[in-house]
């Protein structure tokens, strides 16, 4: 099936810097995208979502950008903190696909250097 992938498996940034995690998706019919954060040994935690009729959405210290032309999604984290260390997954869904699950990428491991 079509898949969602992440460009970099590991990203290391200095504490206080901004982080950008990228994601490419291949299903042009996808109309809903979610970013999750997963800490070691825990379930994925919802961070932020965006629908395909938007190109930007902001939350607390996070911004998601969607470029439908090149089928690219990014998560920006401002002023990273040690607690931001985790694996970040993007997920995509086509709402016309019914109740079936999201399609996840493999994840990017974000490491915050002190």
């Amino acid at each position: 099936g079509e898949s969602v992938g992440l460009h970099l498996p590991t990203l290391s940034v200095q504490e206080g810097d901004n982080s950008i995690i990228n994601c490419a998706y291949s299903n042009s019919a996808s109309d809903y995208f979610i970013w999750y954060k997963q800490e070691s040994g825990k379930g994925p935690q919802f961070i932020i979502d965006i629908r395909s009729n938007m190109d930007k959405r902001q939350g607390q210290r996070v911004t998601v950008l969607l470029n439908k032309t090149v089928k690219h999604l990014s998560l920006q984290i401002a002023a990273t903190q040690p607690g931001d260390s985790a694996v970040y997954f993007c997920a995509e869904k086509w709402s016309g696909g019914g109740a079936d699950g999201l399609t996840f990428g493999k994840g990017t491991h974000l490491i915050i250097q002190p």
Partner: protein
Amino acid sequence: SQTIHQWPATLVQPVGSPLSLECTVEGTSNPNLYWYRQAAGRGLQLLFYSVGIGQISSEVPQNLSASRPQDRQFILSSKKLLLSDSGFYLCAWSHHLRTQYFGPGTRLLVL
């Protein structure tokens, strides 16, 4: 607010033994429910989903099965575990076919 529970948190089982993992959701009604498996360092693979009591859809062939005996209860089972069944099992719920919210997960080790 809604909460989702999974138990047990950790399980070590011998090959060939049965399995029963439970997931329950509180604070909502008629949710869509999902079972995912996550291999170490990998993404999530959808195993089963359910849109209502007794309604189960399977995404991949395997020796696992799922049941939904109550509106907010989802059970993952196996009659005989394989080594390849080891992994991190996650339950999730959603409404309106949108965001899915995950439980804390069950780590299963089959020896």
